Each structure stands twice: as C-alpha cells, then as structure tokens.
C-alpha cells in the first residue's frame, strides 16, 4: 500500500500546486518541497526498515489491486533492491529539482510544479510498475509533463527541443506498445488468460524470431531514452533548452528509466534474444562512449557539452548490461546512481552560471574561480567525477563495468577504457574555459548563496559516500543483479 501512496502523494501534491498557484504563487514551492520531502522520508524509511528485516526473495514489497479486469490489467506495483535504489535517487534529485527552481521560475509557478511533480510521479511509477499496461501508462505520464517543462519554461529554442524530445520518445514508446500488445496476445493464446502482468508474461514461450522482433520494440524504446548513439539526438537539444530542474531530471532520472527498462524487462523476458545481440549492443555502447566524448570536446554551449558527456557515460551502461556479468551489472547500477548525481550536479552548476551570466557559451566565460572560489571548487570536484577520479562514485561504477566486461570481450573493453582518456579531455576543457584562464566577466559575480550551497553540499556528500563506501548500494541490488545475469543460462 505504501508503494501506491508514494505515487499518489506526488499526483495530489502536483494538483494542489496547480490549483493553489492560481491564488497564491508563493506558497506552491513549499507545497512541492513538502511533497517530495515526504516521499524522500517514506522511501528512506523503507530502506532502513528493510535493512533490519530478514527478507527472502528479491521482491521486498508488493501491492496489487484490480484495475481493468476485463483487459487483464491490474494496478501492480512491486519493489525490489533495484527499484528501491532508483527511487531513493528519484526523490533525492527530485528534492534538489524543487530547491533549484526556487528563484529560477517566476512565471506560472503553480503549473510548473504540477508538471515537475507529475514527471516525478511518472518516473516513480516506471520504477515500480509490474504490469506492462501500467508501465506504459507511467512511461507516458513522465513524458508529457516533461514536454511542457521544456516547451514553456525552456530557453530560446525551446519549442524545437520540446518537439524533438517528444517525437523521439514517442516513436520509441509506440514501438514498445506494439511489443507489449504482441506479448500480451501471444501469452494469452498460450495460457488462455489474457494478462499484462509481468510474472505471467515472463513465462511466455516465444520462437526465436518472434522473440527477436518483440524484444527490438522494447529495446528501441529503452535505448532512445538511454540514449544510444545514433538515437541520441534528442538529448543535447532537450538538455540544453530545458530549465535547470528539467535538465537535472532528464539527465539524472529519465535516462535511467531506459537502463532500468532493459534490466527489468528485456533481459528477463527475452534472455536468449538479448544474448544473441549482446555483441552488437556492447559495440554500440562503446561507440557511444567514444563518440559522445568526442562531441563533448567540441561543444561551446556548456549544457550541450554536459549533455554529450551523458551520452558517453551511458555508453558504459549499455556495455555493462550486455556483458551479462554480475560485476559489470553492479557497475551499471552504480553508474545509474552516480551519473545521476554527478551529471545532475554539473547541470545545476550550469544553471547557476546561466542565472549569473545569462549565457551558456563557454567562450564568454573564463576566470570565474577568482570571484566564485566555492563554486569553482565544487565544479572541480564534479568534473573530476565525470572523468572518473577514484574516491568519487563514478570511478567505482566505471571500474566495475570495465573489469566485469574485460573477460567477455577484451578489444571492446580496451576501446571503452580509452574513453577514460577522452573524458579527461572534455572535462578539463570545461574547467579551463569556465573557471580558469584570464578573467573575462566585467562585473564580479556573486558566489553561491546559502540555498545553492545546501544543494551542492548534498550532491557532494552523495558522490563521496558512493565513492568511498558503495557497499550498501551493491548489497541492496545484489539479488536483482544476480537474477538478471543468471536468467540467461
């Protein structure tokens, strides 16, 4: 029941924001903050409660009520270690998204927070849904409000970016819908009961070619979200045009739904077909690592640059998933979490810079360390995270992925490892153009405010904790990861 509450709280909080925003725009941010904090508290309680309870099996919590029985759909939510980790990340970043919008958003605040909270609800739903119809529903719930966030509160080229984001994601989503329906009918014909439930669809017998095509539908939807080169083009535009909170949620959470989908649905439902294409998937992952890094190196728009680093980092995810090794898969989960935090932090910094300088062009920045030493220090930390410095979470992730993948395919792993060199190129270039070099801004800019300090302090602690003591996360997802990996045998 608590799982349903988590989502319902967000939905109601969003509606309240919209309604009350008409009369009193100032109070809505407090409502939004209260909403996400409630959920954060709930999910943290679950984490600590479950740690103390001995639980057998991978599913920690389960909630199921009938929804539309005649279609065979039910409102089925369940939580395992992976969902739990992703939910903690969701509400952690969700809280930051609300706080970082505090001053940035001045128009239609009620509707803004409605969209923000509903996107979060969609994401939470995606991480919890175990009914494919419901999953698809949440998949759309997270898409539409995000579209509004970009299209209304975005930057100058926001319409184009919003359309592009919508069309790409929707194209993938529709393919997934076809696959879901195909699976539904094949399974129904085999068993006689038509159901969208995850556990009944899991046992569908598929002949290899059908499995391949149906899997492709899912996979395309997920790798567009991930994103995989060459289906990544929505991402730089959407990230760079979205408001700060939008970029934070896009990079920190939305991309992770793609990886989550592959681990949750593609590998268990189509183990053989996934194994067949594993070489190609890994190769595309490596391509993404190298290609994204090279693109990032050439960008002049700070948010586009960070966006391309995401493409590069998500390549590691694709590589790690399709290695089918426990260690690599653990690394993938770590990468999902740490990338959410570190890239989220970079987007937060980019947002702060934009508020101060009114530009995203790194050619117009430089020497900002002089006036903003605190922000410079934090930026240094997160550029180091993005190039995989040990002691920060991203290193653990990439290290485990690469070491886990190495025995599976040495040449691909070696090329992927060269991505570490490329990541140094773009990271240091970013640092140099923005914070180092001669001072170019005429008026001294203000360093971080207390509110911004709070935001950056929390992500800093997060990335350091994950880098120095990642074991709680690794333990939490161990069972899920082992299942996902052994499913293939």
């Amino acid at each position, binding site marked *: 029941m608590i799982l349903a509450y988590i989502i319902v709280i967000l939905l109601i909080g969003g509606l309240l924001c919209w309604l009350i925003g008409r009369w009193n725009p100032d109070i809505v941010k407090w409502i939004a903050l209260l909403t996400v904090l409630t959920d954060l508290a709930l999910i943290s309680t679950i984490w600590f409660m479950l740690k103390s309870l001995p639980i057998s099996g991978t599913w920690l919590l389960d909630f199921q009520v009938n929804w539309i029985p005649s279609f065979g759909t039910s409102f089925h939510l369940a939580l395992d270690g992976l969902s739990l980790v992703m939910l903690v990340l969701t509400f952690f970043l969700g809280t930051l998204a609300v706080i970082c919008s505090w001053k940035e958003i001045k128009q239609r605040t009620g509707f803004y927070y409605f969209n923000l909270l509903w996107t979060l609800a969609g994401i939470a739903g995606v991480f919890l849904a175990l009914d494919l119809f419901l999953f698809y529903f949440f998949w759309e719930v997270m898409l539409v409000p995000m579209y509004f966030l970009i299209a209304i509160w975005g930057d100058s080229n926001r319409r184009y970016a919003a359309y*592009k984001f919508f069309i790409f994601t929707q194209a993938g989503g529709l393919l997934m819908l076809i696959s879901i329906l195909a699976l539904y009918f094949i399974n129904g014909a085999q068993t006689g009961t038509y159901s969208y439930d995850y556990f009944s669809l899991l046992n569908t017998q598929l002949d290899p070619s059908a499995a391949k095509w149906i899997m492709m539908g899912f996979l395309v939807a997920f790798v567009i979200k991930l994103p995989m*080169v*060459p289906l*990544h*083009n929505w991402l*730089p535009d959407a990230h760079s045009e979205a408001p700060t909170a939008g970029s934070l949620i896009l990079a920190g959470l939305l991309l992770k739904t793609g990886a989550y989908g592959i681990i949750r649905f593609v590998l268990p439902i189509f183990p053989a077909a996934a194994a067949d294409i594993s070489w190609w998937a890994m190769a595309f992952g490596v391509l993404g690592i190298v290609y994204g890094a*090279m*693109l990032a*190196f*050439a*960008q*002049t728009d700070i948010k586009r640059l960070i966006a391309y680093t995401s493409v590069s980092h998500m390549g590691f995810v694709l590589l790690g998933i399709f290695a089918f*090794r*426990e*260690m690599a898969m*653990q690394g993938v989960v770590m990468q999902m979490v740490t990338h959410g935090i570190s890239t989220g932090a970079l987007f937060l910094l980019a947002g702060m810079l934009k508020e101060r300088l009114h530009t995203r062009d790194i050619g117009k920045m430089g*020497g900002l*360390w*002089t006036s903003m*030493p605190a922000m410079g*220090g934090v930026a*240094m930390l997160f550029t*180091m995270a993005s190039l995989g*410095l*040990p*002691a920060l979470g991203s*290193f*653990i992730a990439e*290290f*485990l992925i*690469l*070491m*886990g993948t*190495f*025995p599976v395919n040495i040449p691909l*792993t*070696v090329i992927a*490892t*060269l991505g*570490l*060199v490329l990541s*140094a*190129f773009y990271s*240091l*270039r970013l640092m*140099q153009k923005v*914070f*180092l*070099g*001669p*001072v170019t801004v005429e008026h001294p800019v203000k360093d971080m405010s207390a509110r911004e300090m709070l935001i950056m302090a929390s992500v800093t602690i997060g990335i350091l904790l994950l880098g*120095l*003591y*990642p*074991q709680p996360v*690794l333990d939490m997802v*161990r069972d899920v990861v082992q299942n996902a990996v052994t499913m293939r045998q």
Partner: protein
Amino acid sequence: MNSLLALIPALPLAGFLVLSMAGRRMSKSAIAAIGAGTVGIAAIIVIAIAIQFLQAPPAGNAYSQTLWQWMRTENFSCDFSLRVDALSLVFIFIITFVGALIHIYSAAFMRPDRDYARFFASMNLFVCAMLLLVMGDNLVVMYLGWEGVGLCSYLLIGFWYEAPANCHAANKAFYVTRIGDTAMIIGLFLLYNELGTLNIESILQLSVSQFSTGSNTITWIAILLMLGGMGKSAQLPFQTWLPDAMAGPSPVSALIHAATMVTAGVYLIARMHPLFQLSPLAMDVTAVVGAVTLLVAGCSAMVQTDIKRILAYSTISQVGYMFLALGTGAFSAGIFHFFTHAFFKALLFLAAGAVIESLHHEHNIFKMGGLKNKMPVVFYTFLAGAAALAALPLITAGFFSKDQILWYAWSANNGNPMLWFVALLGAFITALYSTRLMLVVFWGDEKTHVTKLPGRLMTAPLVVLAVLSVTAGFIEWPHNLLHVTFFSDFVQQVLPATSLRDGIPEEIIMQGIAVVVTLLGIYSGYALYRPGSVAVDQMKQSDFVMGFRNFFFKGWAFDELYHTVFVRPFVYITQMNRADVFDRINTSIASGSRQLSKWLSVSQNGSLRWYVAGVLIGVIVLFTLQLFL
C-alpha cells in the same frame, strides 16, 4: 604501531579538508600552521614507526591496517587497507619528511600570494594521495593515490590559473599522464582476469606459479603497468609534460616534480618486481627506456636557459637512471638513487625558487650571475645540491647512488656494456650542465639586482636538505671501499638482491672510469662557462652546432611531433563534427516530410476543375490497370 598507519595520510587529509572549507576565512599564520603542521606531525609519526621498525621488525616485516571494506561483488573484494614494509617506509619517509620541509619553506615563499589557503590545501591533498599510493595494500587503493597525485599535480601546476599558459601546462600534464594511467588500469583488468585478485601480496605470490617466464600475458601485464609508470615518471615517450609543469610554484616543482610524484613509476616497478622479473622483455624495455631517457633529457638540460627547465630535464634524466637500474635488475640501487635524488633535487628546486624570488621572478640564468656573495646561504646550499647532482666523488650523496647504477648497468644480470656506456655518457653530461648552472648563476657579473633575501623560514629547509645531500649517501658504500650496506640490507627485505653476471671487469676499474668521466664533465663545464670564456660564443658561430642546440632546446621536437600527429587531427575531427553528423539524418527526415507536404499541398488548391481532372485521371489509371493486368 599498526593503528597509527591510518593517521599518516589522514593528517594531511584533515589539513586539506579544513583549509579547503574554511581556509578563506583564516589568517595566513593559521593556514601555514595547519598546512605545514599536519605534514610535520605525519613526518614525526613516520619517523617513530621507522625507529620501531628497525628496532623490532614486525611479523612478516610489515605493518598493516584495514580501514573498511571498499567494495565487494561477485568474486572481487577490495578493502581500504594500508600496508607498510621496508620499501614503502623509504617512500613515506621521503614524502613526509621532505614534504614537511617543503611545506615550511612554502609558508614563507607563498606568503604574499592571494590564494595561500588554496595552495596549502592542494599541497596537503597531494601528500595524502602520494601516501596512499605507496601505502595501499592493493592496486585499487594504489590507483586511487595514483590518480589523486595526478589531480593535485594538475591543480598546482595551474595554481596561477589566470595565465592561459599555466592552464595549458596543467592540462598537458594531466592528459599525458592519463594516457599512461589508462594503460595501467587495463593492466589491472588483465591481472584480475588472470589471478582473480588485486591484492598486491596475493598477486606477487600467485604470479610465480601462475605465469611462465616470458609468456605473452605476463609481458603484456608488465608493459601495461610500466606504461603507467612511464607516464607519471615522465619517461620517454611521455616526458613532454614535465618541463612545462614548471609553470607551477617552485615548492610544487620540488615536492611533486622532483622528490615524490615523478618517482611513482619507480615505486610501481619496484613494488611489482616479481612480475617484471618474469618477463625478460619488460625488464629490457625498462632498462632501455631509462637509458634513452637519461640521455635525451640530459642533452636538453645542457642547453636550457630557464633555471627551472634545466632542473626539470635533469629530473627526467635522473629518473631515467632509476629506470635503468630497475631494468638491469638492480632494484635496491634504483631505490637508493630515488632516496638521494629526493634530497638534492628538492634542494635545487627550492634554492632556485629563492633565487627567482630574489630577482623579480627572473628565470633566465643568463640574466642572473654573481650571486655568490649576494646570497651566500643559497649559494652554499645550491653548491651542495649541484655537486650531488654531478655526483662529485666520495663527498656527495649523488655519487654513492649513481656509482652503483653505473656499476650494475654493466655487471648486473640484465646489464650490458652498451647500457653502461650510455649511463656513463649521461654522467658526463650531468656533470657538465651542473657546472654550467653553478657558474652562470653564481659567478660572473651581477646582471639583475638582488632586492630581497630569503628569510630564515626559507633557508632552514635548504640547510637541512643540503646536509642530507652530502651525507645521505654514507649509509650505503660501494662494496670494495667500505662495508656499509645499511640501505640495501633494509630494502632487500622486500626487493631481491642484485645478482651479477659472469666475466665482468673489476669494480674498482669501473669506478675509476666513472670518477674520471665525472671530473672531465665538470672540467668541460668549467672550460666552457668560466667567467670570461669565449668558447661558447665561438661554438655558436657554427650553424651545425646551433642546429643541434635548438633541437635539444626544444626537447628533441617531441612537442611538435605530438602536436602534428595527435593533437591537430583530434581537434580537427572533433571540430568538423561539432554539429553531430547523426543529427543530419533527423533533420533530413524532418525537411523531407516538409518538402513532401509542400508538393502534395499543391494539389489542394480549391479549384474544382483540378479535382475533377484528378478524379478522372485516377479512374482512367485504375481502369487501364484492370484491363492490362
């Protein structure tokens, strides 16, 4: 003692945390006290541990401490744990002791700087990372330190970040060493894949039974690890970053780019020596890389005019000697040279910093001169350092360590006359440029006026280091002169004893040759650069000589080469594709649909005649198809 281990890196780390968070609101004296104090206390703890270690060696000849479990998954587990044996003890002693002296010096040297706190924060973080590098009991902790020192080196080279050249130098250092680091981490993956562990002790034990001598796998592993070491230690072909790294403040050059970080590669090879010994090819490569590097860098040092660049090339060259020693199998000799080099090269950098500071940031040695009487303390200490660098026989530390290397370059199991000859040539060049440096800077006419003299806080570390540059060598004598082998006995708890080949000449003859060559080098330097000498001016008339001089001056044109082969193509390709070629596909789908809509909308023109004609044509076409098909 075990529980004190963690304190050693934790103290500088605490200093870093305090200074980076609260440093901007603290007074300069407080900053200096924290910055230098933490490293000083760490040095005292190290000395206490060392005394304990010598008096009552611990079980297994090592102290170790496990702090917490870092990560554990599948079959891999890795703890955050520290281990100190004889080899690490030598390193942590140098890091904390020389580090503390340099911190004390910096307290005065950096005093006028605006970013005093940032300087000490970065220096403290460096000391912490360097300590983790040599204390880590598994390769992952070592890699953490390895990357950490790279970061601090980057931060400190670019310390005066407002000058673009400094930032470029910092970036270059990071990029070049990162390439080596990446090779090294691939080596780690390969090791784990073969042995299933990254714990150093286990690796060293397992490797002997798991790998056959000279097999491909072990050679790959050794070479990959060595590439990492070559990057950090600025060995050919990765040496290009170090001369530029002189953009950082002088204490940084003394600590990072002379005494400690650049010898990380030496530590790595010595630490993993069983792996290298299993691969004759890797050993040969190490020796040859060292030999070539010491010669190439030595030639460049001969013709530089910037005092710090001379010292930088000389560092590359001296680290080359260490690699040569390791490659010939004389592990303890390599570590001994690291030990003495740390003192005299740190001294030279600090003294150079004092000179530069007193002469309004003048770096060009030919604009210095006549400082002998103006700055007596700096002069005498510099003299001690330069003599040690030139390996002046019997009275300097540099002689004892370098003489060993020269001897083993011929006589050790893996040595040969060719290596010895190159090392000998290098010794000649070293003596020559040391003499040149001394004569040009301290003798002759005064060309720039000395405005201020370094204070006590700066000269005291110089004096301590100068004393050590002379005396540190006495703990290890050549076997045929005096039977003092304190140092090699100590490190050979960990490292293998050097075995000699058959059919080698008498050691005393070789020593005689080395001494003569060194003195000849000093004399040549004197002949060329003594005040009033015109020999150099005469040589400069010849185009041939100048051609070589310029080639050496540019560091054998490696920068140009890399720029043409790697940098320019990479930048060109990335700039070409800035707009992302894949986006073309999407935009062409969009523009294609738009074009199609334009064409089709022509038919939607509202004119009835067109519609009727369209319908008729359609009907006719359908009928025709019906008829013919």
